[in-house]
């Protein structure tokens, strides 16, 4: 809502308060003033001029040479390019020395050889948005009515010597979509009086009810409908001050009748509609729900197909307006209109909202009905409009009005104790202070001991419960004056759950291991939604996606990470190593919420280690990523329960991918991206993993327990085993571990050889075995005994022979 500071002064005395101060006070009391616009900022030297002569510029087809009286001793010559400039017009002239928006200074000039002493201005040249300029002047200069005086300040005439407060209204404060509503608010804040307009209409003898009758078939949607009839209206431009106020409020002037309805909408917050009585098509207004498929052409010339959800005003036969949203073209007020049928009604917010949404039509009217208009202002607004139609459209107002009124108006009556107010706010306010706050708001009160009973005016439909009253007290008392305390009461231990703690530990570990945390979108394309998914279900699709690329919920994080890797590689960011922990979404049919499973995924590509001046460089490979995972499992304390099995996973390199098992359950995979996909993403060798985060964080591990430090030396034996090439190291290791028994403390691979000195089809794997007894120093014989068992076992179970 754009609130004119000057206009507001008609209702509240603002003396001693600048627009900026007022804005600050309004903001601090609950309605955010998003800006204060000085309408004539950067403008000066624009006066009313009278075009005495106009002739074609001798050297330019599209220019006019004008002689303009600007109230100085002599008229001046001005060259003007506007197509509508003409002799006899009163116009806005930026005189020599004037400044226009954008610090555009007007100087004496020669245009195609002719002197020009100023500029005749269009409204947009004066800083008014072109969309708000009345149609007839939108392509040229603005022509003032004849009664303005030459030499006067043109900006003042246009109401531009004003400042506009832009209110950012929250959904509950529809009452401030009107000047009167704002006046009540400001009066309460400043503790001043509100002066309301007091319309006086002298009706003629004819009765409105002889001209029109009303029937409402949908009383719930439209409990109150008031129609007035105004005769002998002369359609003309509305007064300049009214046009100025409309434009400042963001409404384009049309003609006096339409402008008056809009002016009342701004003043009272009550949308009105003016029909041309002679074009209405009958003497009966019938308000009803539309029939399915029924059509109406609205004022914006669009044909709208209606449903039974939409409320329409009809002439008994066909719709003439989409109730509360927009009028119909068939009954529009036009230049030849003489009798106006004026509608002021109360339409239910939800009904209007539905129509406005279905037709994509948000009008000044619909937004007010949606938020709820004041039922007690419906008649008053009609009366005020009639007054203005008589004044500014020379209309004759018929006696009375046609009405259908089934509206029950029950103002909210709420009681609240002082104790409750102070308990909720943490304050120590007195009952007198509370009462005076409600008095400032013009809410009626009665006080019984420490209980105050408040009758809420109908204009404040947002106040329905005691807490709403507490808010009114708090905001006018001033949030600044509230004390600062901390919750007392029982203390609660603050902590992370074990799961949350471990999740943080996982993140810290991966970052310590060199990976950056990424955060990607949950929404992806249908195709990518299921790629790499550890568990596949039908991907979940949005009902109304904004694009194909963001239409489905992901079942794996890897496709999103690959996009990130691709982005970074394309920008030459070296060493791309990322991880993300977050949910994937597994559908459970359309009735139930999906299972959200947290996954941990990572991707690495490029150079892993680089020590430039020493000339060392290591590209990422499978074992870099596997090493990171091994470290993770060790950190979480269950590395012994992990197993890697060579596997085929779609999208992954068939020879370089392992599935990861935890205590026999598959929890994820790690490996190289399939070369075909690598190519698609423009990537070099890229390695990825995805794990069920919940599985690894929920795995039970033995509580920490100190193990005594070995007091006896250990004995190490190295062996190189020659086996078939297909034999995997993991298998050999399990055989060794099993045969080594409890004396074998550690076994690890320290060499792998597949070169020319091997028999074809064979390879050699070298293991280092560490034997140790916590109770005593092992003898050579004891070690040899176990070690021989190991050698026998690998020979028998894996055909491994010691390399000679």
């Amino acid at each position, binding site marked *: 809502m754009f609130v004119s500071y000057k206009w507001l002064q008609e209702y509240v005395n603002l003396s001693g308060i600048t627009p900026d101060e007022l804005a600050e006070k309004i903001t601090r009391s609950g309605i955010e003033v998003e800006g204060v616009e000085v309408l004539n900022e950067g403008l000066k030297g624009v006066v009313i001029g009278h075009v005495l002569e106009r002739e074609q510029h001798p050297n330019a087809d599209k220019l006019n040479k004008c002689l303009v009286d600007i109230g100085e001793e002599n008229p001046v010559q001005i060259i003007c390019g506007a197509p509508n400039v003409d002799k006899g017009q009163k116009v806005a002239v930026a005189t020599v020395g004037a400044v226009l928006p954008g610090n555009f200074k007007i100087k004496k000039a020669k245009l195609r050889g002719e002197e020009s002493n100023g500029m005749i201005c269009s409204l947009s040249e004066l800083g008014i948005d072109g969309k708000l300029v009345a149609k007839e002047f939108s392509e040229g200069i603005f022509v003032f009515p004849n009664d303005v005086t030459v030499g006067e300040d043109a900006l003042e005439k246009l109401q531009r010597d004003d400042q506009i407060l832009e209110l950012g209204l929250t*959904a509950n404060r529809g009452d401030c979509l009107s000047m009167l509503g704002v006046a009540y608010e400001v009066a309460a804040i400043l503790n001043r009086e509100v002066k309301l307009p007091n319309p006086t209409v002298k009706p003629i003898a004819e009765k409105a009810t002889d001209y029109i009758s009303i029937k409402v078939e949908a009383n719930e949607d439209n409990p109150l409908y008031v129609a007035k009839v105004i005769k002998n209206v002369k359609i003309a431009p509305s007064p300049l001050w009214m046009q100025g106020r409309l434009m400042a409020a963001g409404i384009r002037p049309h003609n006096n009748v339409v402008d008056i309805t809009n002016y009342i909408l701004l003043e009272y917050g009550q949308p009105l509609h003016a029909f041309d009585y002679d074009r209405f098509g009958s003497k009966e207004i019938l308000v009803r729900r539309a029939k399915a498929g029924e059509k109406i052409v609205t004022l914006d010339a669009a044909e709208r197909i209606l449903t039974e959800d939409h409320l329409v005003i009809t002439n008994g036969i066909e719709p003439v307006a989409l109730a509360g949203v927009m009028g119909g073209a068939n009954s529009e007020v036009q230049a030849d209109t003489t009798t106006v049928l004026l509608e002021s009604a109360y339409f239910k917010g939800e009904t209007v909202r539905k129509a406005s949404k279905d037709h994509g039509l948000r009008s000044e009217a619909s937004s007010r009905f949606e938020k709820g208009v004041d039922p007690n202002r419906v008649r008053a607004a009609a009366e005020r409009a009639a007054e203005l139609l008589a004044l500014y459209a020379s209309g004759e107002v018929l006696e009375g009005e046609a009405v259908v009124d089934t509206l029950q108006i029950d103002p909210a009556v709420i009681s609240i104790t002082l104790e409750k107010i102070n308990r909720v706010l943490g304050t120590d306010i007195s009952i007198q202070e509370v009462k005076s706050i409600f008095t400032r708001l013009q809410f009626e009160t009665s006080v019984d001991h420490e209980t105050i009973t408040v009758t809420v005016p109908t204009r404040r439909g947002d106040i329905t419960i005691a807490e709403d009253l507490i808010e009114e007290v708090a905001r006018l008392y001033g949030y600044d004056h509230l004390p600062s305390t*901390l919750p007392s009461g029982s203390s609660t231990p*603050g902590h*992370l759950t074990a799961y949350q703690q471990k999740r943080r530990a996982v993140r810290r570990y991966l970052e310590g*291991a060199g990976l950056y*945390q990424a955060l990607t979108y949950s929404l992806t394309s249908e195709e990518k939604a299921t790629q790499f998914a550890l568990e596949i279900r039908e991907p979940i699709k949005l009902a109304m996606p904004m694009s194909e690329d963001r239409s489905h919920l992901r079942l794996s994080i890897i496709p999103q990470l690959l996009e990130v890797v691709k982005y970074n590689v394309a920008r030459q960011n070296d060493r791309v190593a990322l991880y993300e922990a977050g949910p994937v979404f597994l559908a459970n049919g359309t009735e139930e919420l999906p299972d959200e499973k947290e996954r941990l995924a990572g991707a690495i590509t490029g150079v892993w280690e680089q020590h430039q001046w020493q000339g060392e460089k290591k590209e990422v490979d499978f074992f870099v990523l596997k090493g990171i995972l091994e470290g993770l499992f060790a950190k979480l304390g269950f590395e012994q329960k992990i197993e890697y099995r060579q596997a085929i996973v779609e999208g992954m390199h068939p020879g370089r991918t392992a599935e990861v098992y935890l205590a026999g359950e598959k929890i994820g995979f790690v490996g190289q991206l399939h070369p075909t996909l690598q190519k698609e993403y423009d990537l070099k060798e890229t390695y990825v993993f995805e794990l069920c985060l919940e599985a690894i964080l929920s795995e039970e591990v033995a509580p920490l327990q100190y193990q005594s430090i070995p007091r006896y030396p250990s004995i190490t034996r190295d062996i190189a085993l020659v086996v078939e090439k297909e034999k995997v190291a993991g298998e050999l290791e399990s055989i060794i571990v099993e045969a080594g028994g409890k004396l074998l403390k550690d076994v690890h691979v320290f060499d792998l050889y597949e070169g020319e000195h091997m028999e074809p089809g064979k390879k050699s794997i070298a293991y280092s075995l560490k034997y140790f007894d916590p109770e005593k120093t092992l003898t050579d014989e004891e070690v040899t005994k176990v070690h021989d068992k190991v050698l026998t076992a690998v020979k028998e179970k894996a055909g491994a022979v010691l390399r000679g």
Partner: protein
Amino acid sequence: MQERLKELQEEALQAVDAAADLKKLNDIRVSYLGKKGPITEVLKGMGKLSAEERPKMGALANEVRDLISSKIEEKQQALEAAAVEARLALETIDVTLPGRPVQTGNHHPLTRIVEEIEDLFIGMGYTVAEGPEVEKDYYNFEALNLPKSHPARDAQDSFYITEEILLRTQTSPVQARTMEKHGGKGPVKIICPGKVYRRDSDDATHSHQFMQIEGLVVDENIRMSDLKGTLELFAKKLFGEDREIRLRPSFFPFTEPSVEVDVSCFKCGGHGCNICKQTGWIEVLGSGMVHPNVLEMSGFDSKKYSGFAFGMGVERIAMLKYGIDDIRHFYTNDTRFIKQFKLN
């Protein structure tokens, strides 16, 4: 004999002096002091001396021997020291060359903010509550006092999957769920971080996915002044000790009274700059006293219990705190961006 010894002494000392390395020195030791050395040779002639001269000569011989020996020792130490120095000189490196890099990653900036806020409130007795991102309309809206007909909800603004299921538009449903779980018994003190989704086109200031973090306290006798005190602590911790907060009345369907919270601008300190649009204040969060309808719907007796809630956009906080100009950076994951948030 005496002369012979003096001669030998002179000769040996010259040789020691001339010895260039330890091997030479050892040869000298062996040749002069060894059992077959010249001094031993000389002493063999002692028998020919008188009983008077014999001890004198013996003493002289020992003197010569000791002198040579100590000179050798001296020389040896000098040679050894020189050898160490030579080796050290050889081993000298250029310490200004770069070290072997240890590569570490780091948190995403949003996680950084979230954890900072979590930790602050954990210290004040809160726990961290989480909930589903795909949510029932009931928890996302209805339980928060936003019935189906409420003007503040618009299907156009939410990603619905079915009529009753949508991507949550706020983290507030976690509040509703947590309260429900408490079965009408306080205290509830939670902080809820999480991703939320709105049907917005992505641009510099909008993102269809973003993060929120919310707090909720429900107990007997929770006052609006408690909210104010809590938020003051929060603002000082997150934005600096010098920060002040300003509460403005506002409107949210799930709180009454509702409060919008501004923090004094942390760039200009409140004098006015481009960050605070010359106002000296920056809007950082929304909050209020939990609406009695919300308490009742979640099973709390609103006559006995009261509460406050607050919530903020994590991206906004990060953008303000670190001067980030485009929300899309958070989801592009350019490593040049993420790397800037190293220190955890």
